[in-house]
């Protein structure tokens, strides 16, 4: 039994070990790297990506994909900046954004499930739609100078002298914890794994496949909108070309964290560590100082490659063992 738990969480453990290794290596190599604040900055700088990756993980586990998230973030930033400039109540704006994200997710999920349109194409349409809508609002960037937003953005929760986190980090951690609990212990979460594992058998088992598949996209849209709000705390502006390619970062984080794109396998906590690993590579490159920033991309891609091959080897091994057991019995 113990062995079972270990092998099931193997890629998650590898991800965490790798993160610790990278952090140790950075600490040994660079002065000032080993500090609580460097660690916490990973969360502060990547809070929005963590939130988005949580939503993405659910979609990927269900066997789908959502490439609209980056545009949702840009659109949320743009529209909230525009509405705030016109004197809307900031809390109302946030609520509206979450509603828009969820509704968009619902529509995409609906056409994916009921009209049998491939998730890639349906969310591609969503991506173009949100991105285009950004430019209808404005083609230049809009500043956010709302006092509530700036207060939230600049508020520091002191954990110890000279170490702090932002409110965004708290939001991100709540999302991760809620996501992890939902995935592992709720009826919905288990159903998502079942649908991703085999949609047909999930259907035959009597699971409400339609509702689950659509809910997953609603969840992803919600997380993307929340990520967008957090991102607008981070930048205090809205701009239509923001975050191009972010969806691939989110997918890469999930994959590094052990999620399989074929569905049925993955974990929310793993995705969070996937984000943190990308963050720490960036931090190391900044500390190194003489490396150009595009090394980040190359490093992340090599890691991605390493992880995928590793997962491949593990699952191939497992398959072989299962077959041998079947033959024996």
């Amino acid at each position: 039994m113990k062995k079972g738990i270990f092998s099931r969480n193997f890629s998650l453990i590898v991800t965490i070990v790798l993160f610790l290794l990278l952090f140790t290596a950075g600490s040994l190599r660079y002065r000032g790297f080993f500090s609580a604040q460097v660690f916490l900055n990973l969360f502060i700088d990547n809070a929005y990506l963590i939130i988005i990756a949580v939503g993405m993980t659910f979609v990927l586990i269900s066997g789908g994909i959502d490439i609209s998230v980056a545009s949702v973030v840009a659109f949320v930033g743009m529209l909230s900046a525009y509405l705030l400039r016109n004197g809307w109540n900031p809390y109302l704006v946030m609520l509206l954004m979450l509603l828009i994200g969820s509704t968009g997710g619902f529509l995409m999920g609906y056409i994916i499930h009921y009209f049998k349109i491939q998730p890639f194409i349906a969310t591609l349409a969503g991506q173009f739609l949100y991105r285009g809508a950004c430019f209808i609002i404005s083609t230049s960037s809009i500043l956010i100078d709302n006092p509530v937003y700036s207060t939230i953005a600049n508020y520091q929760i002191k954990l110890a002298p000279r170490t702090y986190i932002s409110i965004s980090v708290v939001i991100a951690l709540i999302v991760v914890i809620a996501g992890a609990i939902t995935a592992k212990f709720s009826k919905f979460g288990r159903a998502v794994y079942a649908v991703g594992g085999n949609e047909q058998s999930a259907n035959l088992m009597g699971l409400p496949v339609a509702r689950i598949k659509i809910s997953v996209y609603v969840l992803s849209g919600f997380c993307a909108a929340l990520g967008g709000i957090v991102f607008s705390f981070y930048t205090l502006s809205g701009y239509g070309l923001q975050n191009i390619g972010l969806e691939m970062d989110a997918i890469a984080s999930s994959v590094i964290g052990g999620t399989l794109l074929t569905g049925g396998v993955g974990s929310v906590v793993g995705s969070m560590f996937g984000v943190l690993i990308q963050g720490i590579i960036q931090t190391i490159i900044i500390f190194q100082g003489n490396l150009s920033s595009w090394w980040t991309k190359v490093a992340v891609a090599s890691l991605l490659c390493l992880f995928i091959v590793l997962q491949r080897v593990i699952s191939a091994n497992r398959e072989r063992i299962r077959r041998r057991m079947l033959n024996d019995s």
Partner: protein
Amino acid sequence: MKKITTNQIFWPLAAFIVLLVYNAFFAKNFFKISILDGHLYGNLIDILKNFAPLALLSIGMTLVIATGGVDISVGSVVAISGAIACSIIDGRLGIFDHSFVAALILALLSGIACGLWNGFLVAKVKIQPMVATLILMTAGRGIAQLITKGKIVTINSAPMMKEYYFLGAGYFLGLPFAFFIVVAVFTIVMILVKRTAFGLFLQSLGTNSKSSLLSGVKVDRIKIVVYTISGLMASIAGILISSNIKGADCNNAGLFIELDAILSVAIGGNSLSGGRFMVPASIVGALFVQCLTTTVYALGVPPEAISLLKAIVILVLCLFQSDNFRQKVFKGAGRWRKGADAA
């Protein structure tokens, strides 16, 4: 009539014609073609010139998608090949001494190498195509930046600039030279697909990969070949794009072009989950996408809004191609269904 509407190429072609008719009424001088500097000039000619890279990519993408895969790294390969070609033409890579031939050969080789890598990951390591090509997509722009040392390479003053510029922006017999490249490549691929065993195997592989394997088709080899073709197409597209702007911009060259290529294939009515495919339909799809872009410019709509239009087009076209949608929306659904069954 039924036979026509169920033909795969009907919907993209119809969409394209609708767009042209719309332009005939609403876009001023859209069909006007004049002669300027000894070559034809006008919106239609512009479409032929600018659709070349997308058409090449969609040819490669069609083959890849036919095997049930997808190649999202093409945009990055475009950047790499452009970076290599321009760096050599510009003389940054000193050993090649501005050589035009070396630039072309090395750029094409880079595409083949990228394709082989993708194919290896998909066929041998058995990684899902989207993840496998995601690796190169992420790394590719970084690699291109490393080749150009993070700068935008311009070749305005390079000795072989004229020859290189001719490839993507020159005119031959009054028509854009890039268009002839597309025709040549298209002909070769069609021969490959229709007249060789490879094409047959490719078709069977997408329909049922397992049964193809059992009947002795070398599935792995075919997969590697299609990804290599896709990489090669991307490198040619990279050459055309960089030649057209006389330089390599690693951040923006071919950005999102993989989405447009997949879109062209989908508009062409090819199933994105593999199986039966039609290369000409994808080309019409690419033509449609490019025509849409040109229309937007001709109408004077802000170019940023183009993604909005694309979204609407994807939705409308995909919904029309979806049987479930037609059944639900049209009350006379029975007619549609029967038509599809009869085919």
